[in-house]
């Protein structure tokens, strides 16, 4: 992205009375990007999205879209369209009328409008449903109608407020793939609000993780997963184990950071593995469940080893999660193992050897 981002959010603050809902949000969203706002309930995702759409006045800061300051621009004059969490399908109109709602002002012939509506419905897989009453649709179909209704206007930005949360798991997974495909196809910038970290990881080019009105980390999914900027982000995205650690008195040397990790032993970490500055003293080390490898064959060579006792087993079919208490660690960690042909399940109480790699650790001071 060499040019200026399509949406520039600069120091945006929002107060609801005394309540500080957005606390200085700054972010740039590129043209054609699939951008997600991820965070727990009440962190201000919807507020930020509605501020971009023009439904909330912001208390400070500014929002620019395509270089234009959006201050005072009403929603109907913004190059954005919003897919509402409740879909907001007009109950008094048919499916086709819903989809064509925004075309009234378009300079097109009636026949062209009808064709555009047909194409939009076709695109979301509802080609046959144009004549249906809008209230006679399933949740998934409503969601598609809402999507078609927004996309038909070819907005620069499509804003989606938890569009999939009302769908069942199967449908949701299917729509995640479909949305992603659609976004590539139309090339429109998508800003998606979700509280489902898995959904954000699957769909986004970049994710802004929000806590309490602030962006805690803005990164690509992989960076977010592998190098969470704080313990809170690491906990929120996927599963992460935290082991107490001690940063050596020598602290940071050019060779790295010397750390003594409970259960894993002494190791040296790169400074890139430590968000913020490392200081000597008590710290914590985060490790993902898949970064600890169960050595089913004790003889397998491994540079870094640990041993532990299996406390609990959770079987998922393709994967098994073991709760293992490492020797010297105060509490158990989650370890995942892929269930491959010929691989047995461990037993409760069994002592196992684990391999790990220092590069997969994250140090939180």
């Amino acid at each position, binding site marked *: 992205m060499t040019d200026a981002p399509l949406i520039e959010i600069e120091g945006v603050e929002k107060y609801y009375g005394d309540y500080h809902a957005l606390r200085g949000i700054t972010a740039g969203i590129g043209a054609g990007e699939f951008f997600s706002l991820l965070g727990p309930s009440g962190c201000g995702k919807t507020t930020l999205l509605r501020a971009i759409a023009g439904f909330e006045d912001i208390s400070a800061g500014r929002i620019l879209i395509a270089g234009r300051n959006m201050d005072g621009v009403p929603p109907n004059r913004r190059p*954005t369209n919003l897919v*509402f969490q409740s879909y907001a399908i*007009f*109950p*008094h109109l048919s499916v086709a009328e819903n989809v064509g709602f925004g075309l009234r*002002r378009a300079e097109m012939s009636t026949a062209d409008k009808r064709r555009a509506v047909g194409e939009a419905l076709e695109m979301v897989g509802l080609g046959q449903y144009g004549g249906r*009453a809008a209230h006679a649709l399933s949740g998934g179909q409503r969601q598609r109608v809402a999507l078609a209704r927004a996309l038909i*206007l070819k907005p620069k930005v499509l804003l989606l407020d938890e569009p999939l949360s009302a769908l069942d798991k199967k449908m949701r997974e299917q729509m995640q793939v479909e949305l992603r495909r659609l976004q590539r196809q139309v090339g429109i910038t998508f800003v998606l609000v979700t509280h489902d970290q898995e959904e954000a990881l699957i769909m986004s080019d970049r994710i802004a993780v929000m806590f309490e009105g602030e962006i805690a980390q803005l990164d690509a999914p992989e960076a977010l997963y592998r190098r969470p900027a704080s313990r809170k982000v690491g906990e929120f995205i996927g599963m992460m184990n935290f082991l107490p650690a001690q940063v050596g008195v020598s602290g940071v040397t050019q060779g790295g950071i010397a750390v003594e990790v409970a259960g894993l032993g002494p190791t040296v970490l790169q400074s890139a593995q430590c968000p913020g500055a490392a200081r000597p003293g008590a710290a914590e080390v985060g490790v993902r469940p898949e970064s600890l490898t169960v050595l089913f064959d004790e003889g397998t060579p491994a540079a870094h080893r640990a041993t532990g006792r299996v406390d609990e087993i959770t079987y998922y079919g393709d994967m098994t999660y073991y709760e293992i208490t490492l020797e010297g660690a105060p509490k158990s960690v989650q370890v995942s193992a892929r269930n491959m042909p010929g691989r047995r399940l461990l037993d409760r109480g069994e002592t196992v050897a684990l391999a790990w790699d220092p590069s997969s650790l994250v140090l939180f001071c």
Partner: protein
Amino acid sequence: MGDRRPVNALSKALRSDAGRGLTLVSPALIYALLLLAAPLAVIVLFSFWTQNFLTIERVFTLDNYRTALTDPLYATLMQRSISIAGMVTAVTVILAFPVAYYISFYVRPERKSLWLFLITIPFWTSYLIRVFLWRVILAFDGPVNGTLMGFGVIDQPLPWLLYNATAVVITLAHAFAPFAILPIFVALEKIDRALLEASRDLGESPAMTFLRVTLPLAMPGVLAAVLIVFIPTVGDYVTPRLVGGSGGTMIANMIYAQIFDLNDRPMGATLAVLAMTIVALTLIWAISRVRLWLWLGGRISGRARLLVLAAPVAEIALIGWVIGQGPAIFGLIPALLALAGAVLVSSAAILFSVPRGRFAV
């Protein structure tokens, strides 16, 4: 054991959903049957009899109907009742809408019930007293004339404020305002605010959002208000009597006069039956046409839409012609029966075949 079966079946039936529903409504149903249907039947029966000085001639005859339908006095009164009620309905609903809209959209949620409460305050005084108050307000030497003269707007009191149709419309519109505000308010409250935002988001201005989303979705409430105001005002008796003068007399006053002043109960009954029939036919006609129009309106566009809008106007003209010329050409009773039949059949056909859509019409 065998003889207990029916009891079980009955108690079982009573415990089913439909049974429970019937049990719940039965007191009201019995009450309604006894106090509504029975008197109604008696009135219909009376309308076919005749008064012979002090006795009632219990012989079936259509004479009353013939008189009622041919005497221009009754026709004038009926026409006036419908047009006054129509005006009251229009004024009330048009004034009630902004009030309901304001309460629903601009009053803070915790204040809404207070506002509704304030709106019902006029009900605390008797209807009769409210009508009397209007009589005072609009009187020759009343505050309206006094104020206007005080400001020098007029030199002489306006004589036309009271004792005419306008006074009836003003008084009734005031009396029925809460009845119109409440259903419209309920309909507006039910509108999901996200729909209005969606309309703005899709490029419509606030005014167009009102026309394309708010108004259509408020339509069930507006129609309820129309019915609630129109039906009782057509047959209103007190207001025209107190503030209507001779120019504001309505059909109910004539029914009263027939029964109590002229001691002609059968004629009064006939007028009552005719008034009821005409109001019912008018409403069925209006409801079916509105439903048809809304349904077609959603399906066609452009010039064809205007044609559909014009159709009821043409129909009104046709009905007017039949009422005016029909009796002379086809005979009174056949022409009117044919007209009533045509209205009934066409309305029923529309109501049964056109889906009601999202409108409660």
